[in-house]
């Protein structure tokens, strides 16, 4: 239950401040983008002409269809990776099932665009695999040709979304649901198709919708693979080459937002229904079946094939970062640490790293402050409109990086920052704000979860012995939430560190550029690939370490505060 105090002066001004921040840096820029899309560029009046122009242009029609095609195919390919992994590991006794589940999450710690170039060296027309295929079997497979490359890279990167959601759904199914079907004569593939998969459908749909959304909005991967006939790259190219007054970038933005909203809505709707088959009273616990030897062999084959694919960007990137020359050969000619030496001796690449640490650190800091505040306002006060803050912050999920970037450019290019005499749109701080807005929904979820763990009775006990509201928050709530907040910080930090889509639009000088941008620049030239890969490895290490740390923090926190949580803590 909420502690319905209408809100003191302090809580009310905090709410107002957050509202102003979100209004200024999320609502206004996105509204501006939508507004411009429907505005006649000359007269300024409302019009649909921009959309008509868009669909009358062959290139845009093609880009639109390509984006849809790539996103759909990525969902299909990601499903092919995820479904067997999820099914095998949740239903059978399997040596190393835990390793498989962990390895399955590894792609998420590498931003897709980082692995894209490495993938080309492994799977491209002249890549390792095709060279081997050609030599031994006399044919090649166009894994990386045009859209295929984007689909392969994206599905390898994003399939964990399906794996995680589907595994959770499969684990939650009351085992008696399957047993009763077996009891009535069903087994094998039919059992999976008629009972297991339909029951796990909500989890699958939720994951698949997220994959669709991420792929549809992604800018970095197609850019690095030099595939420009898709929506996000077109928006970026129009704005960066023609200028911020060109309406096409805005039309594309509206389409991106629209599809993102539909995908998110689908995902949320699916998750709402997820409880319908979960374990009931008397339902069986985890009953995993042993595999027969030949089944085991087959399953291991499938799993290792998938794992090889999943790890290939990492393998490729490591090889690339340590390789001297790698072209038209299965493996690099020789190995060296020169690329790393170059990265650390070069001023500008060192600056990429320090900039990244600064930007991502600040962004994550802003996120947990706002996240904790919103969580507290929503769960612990009765302030009017507190839910609005939650919705606003969460809405950022549906705003692709490109769109936010365009919105910032458009809204703030004329706003001069006092003292430094520069438009806000080209000041480095704007990158921090963009990152903060982009990562806010994730940090907010972490903070809300942390606060829900704190029993309201603990706060009441503090107030009962005389602590004021502020002292209670300071001495009881925040310390108990600390683990969750820290986990939120690390997650925001790690993912902000490798965000490319918004930063690529907002980076105005190389001196202000973060790591993701640096990798992008390096990867543009053949000579820069080695150092680019070395930077990529650094990025992977930052994200990997962050993910590991946040996982550890959450685990530790769960143990330490198991006693602090109980049913009373939930509004």
């Amino acid at each position: 239950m909420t502690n319905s105090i209408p809100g003191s002066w302090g809580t009310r001004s905090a709410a107002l401040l957050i509202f102003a921040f979100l209004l200024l840096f999320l609502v206004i820029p996105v509204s501006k983008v939508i507004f411009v899309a429907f505005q006649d560029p000359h007269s300024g009046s409302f019009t649909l002409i921009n959309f008509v122009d868009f669909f009358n242009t062959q290139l845009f029609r093609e880009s639109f269809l390509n984006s849809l095609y790539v996103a759909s195919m990525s969902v299909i390919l990601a499903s092919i990776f995820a479904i067997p992994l999820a099914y095998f590991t949740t239903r059978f006794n399997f040596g190393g099932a835990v390793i498989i589940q962990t390895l399955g999450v590894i792609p998420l710690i590498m931003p897709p665009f980082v692995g894209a170039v490495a993938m080309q060296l492994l799977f491209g027309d002249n890549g390792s695999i095709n060279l081997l295929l050609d030599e031994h079997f006399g044919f090649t497979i166009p894994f990386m040709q045009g859209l295929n490359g984007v689909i392969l890279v994206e599905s390898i990167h994003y399939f964990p979304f399906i794996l995680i959601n589907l595994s959770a759904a499969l684990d939650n199914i009351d085992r008696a649901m399957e047993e009763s079907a077996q009891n009535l004569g069903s087994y094998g593939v039919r059992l999976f198709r008629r009972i297991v998969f339909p029951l796990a459908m909500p989890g699958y749909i939720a994951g698949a919708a997220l994959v669709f959304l991420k792929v549809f909005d992604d800018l970095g991967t197609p850019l690095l693979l030099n595939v420009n006939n898709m929506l996000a790259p077109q928006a970026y190219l129009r704005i960066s080459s023609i200028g911020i007054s060109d309406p096409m970038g805005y039309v594309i933005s509206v389409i991106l937002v629209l599809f993102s909203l539909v995908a998110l809505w689908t995902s949320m709707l699916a998750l709402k229904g997820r409880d319908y088959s979960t374990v009931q009273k008397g339902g069986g616990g985890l009953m995993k079946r042993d595999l027969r030897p030949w089944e085991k062999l087959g399953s291991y084959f499938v799993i290792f094939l998938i794992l090889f694919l999943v790890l290939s960007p990492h393998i490729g990137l490591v090889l690339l970062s340590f390789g001297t020359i790698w072209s038209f050969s299965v493996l690099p000619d020789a190995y060296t640490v020169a690329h790393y030496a170059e990265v650390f001796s070069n001023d500008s690449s060192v600056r990429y790293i320090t900039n990244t640490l600064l930007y991502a650190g600040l962004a994550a800091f802003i996120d947990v402050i706002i996240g904790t505040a919103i969580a507290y306002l929503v769960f612990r006060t009765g302030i009017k409109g507190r839910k609005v803050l939650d919705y606003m912050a969460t809405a950022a999920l549906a705003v692709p990086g490109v769109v936010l970037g365009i919105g910032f450019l458009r809204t703030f290019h004329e706003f001069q920052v006092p003292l430094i005499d520069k438009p806000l749109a080209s000041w480095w701080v704007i990158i921090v704000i963009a990152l903060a807005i982009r990562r806010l929904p994730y940090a907010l979820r972490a903070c809300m979860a942390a606060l829900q763990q704190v029993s309201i009775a603990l706060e009441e006990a503090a107030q009962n012995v005389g602590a004021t509201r502020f002292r209670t928050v300071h001495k009881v709530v925040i310390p108990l939430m600390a683990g969750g907040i820290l986990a939120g910080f690390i997650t925001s930090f790690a993912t902000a560190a490798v965000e490319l889509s918004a930063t690529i639009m907002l980076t105005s000088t190389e001196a202000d550029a973060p790591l993701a941008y640096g990798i992008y620049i390096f990867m543009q030239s053949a000579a820069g690939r080695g150092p680019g890969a070395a930077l990529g490895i650094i990025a992977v290490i930052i994200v990997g370490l962050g993910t590991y740390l946040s996982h550890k923090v959450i685990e530790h926190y769960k143990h330490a505060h198991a006693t602090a949580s109980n049913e009373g803590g939930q509004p």
Partner: protein
Amino acid sequence: MTITASDIQSVSVDIEDLHLSFGDTKVLEGVNLSIPAGEFFAFLGPSGSGKSTLLRAIAGFGPRPRGSIRIGGVDIVDLPPWRRDVGMVFQSYALWPHMTVEKNVAFGLVERKLDRREIKQRVGEALELVGLTELANRRPNQLSGGQQQRVALARTVVIRPKVLLLDEPLSNLDANLRVQMRRDILNLQQQLKLTTIFVTHDQEEANTTSSRMAVLDKGVIQQVGTPVELYDTPANRFVAEFLGHANIIDGVLHKTEKGFEFIGDNGLHSSLDRTSGNETGRGMLIFRPQNAHFGTKPPEETELYSGVVEYQEFLGSSRRFAVNINGKHVLIETPHTSGDPNFCIGEQVSFYLDRENVFFLNA
């Protein structure tokens, strides 16, 4: 037309020397059982006794057991669940939420690839049998607990199983519905003459439904018999205590010229006519609380005891007194009628035992 006994061939279930373990934990040890065709049989035991594991082993779920399970004479231990034709109703009913009632019931027939007309007809009959014809197009989550239970039953009997297995089928229903459903299941079973095994931890459920039952504890069958046999002549301390309240007094049995005499460790002496096995030596004297009576004038050759009332409980139809005799409680139950004598706590009372219903078990 409805499903009748003629559609179903009753078969026997014979379990021989069945052992089963989860890893290193032994769950069933040396189970032997013969259930004749058409019998309503109950597995009764506390949680963790292995009763559900035994039922699941018959259906083919869980680890493969050692020993044999013969259904109609055929050993099925190595058959997968889907080849056993053993219908099981799960404790949670396990109705598939993504299918209508009709689809749920039809599932097993579809898996058996029957033709559509026959499926439709048999599903109709099964729903009629459980009185749910009107709800055929509902989803399981639109049904009450009792209705869900009926769907689960219909879904199982529609495949005309050789044996019907019921895993705590009443535990998710509220008290009134439970009594009703108990009758309905029994009627259904008698109508179909289906060999049925019913798992429960509730002795009243087992007593009221089954013609015979097996009491399990720690993976071992303690005793098999009719409900009355088990209540009146429990084979051991566990069975005696699990089936209702029992006074169990440890002591030694001696032979005398007239018969036997029991000398309890708490000093309670009793002469006996009847013992199981008539073996003298250490053992226990067992009697039910309603087989002890307050009073100072016992029948001939019956000992009179005295003790102090420690507490009393009012149970509605009866009163239960705990009488302390040399540091040990003896429970005594008297039928409750208005104007009954009532004792105060601490009051000295005399009582005697009903010789017919007292017996001795060797330890």
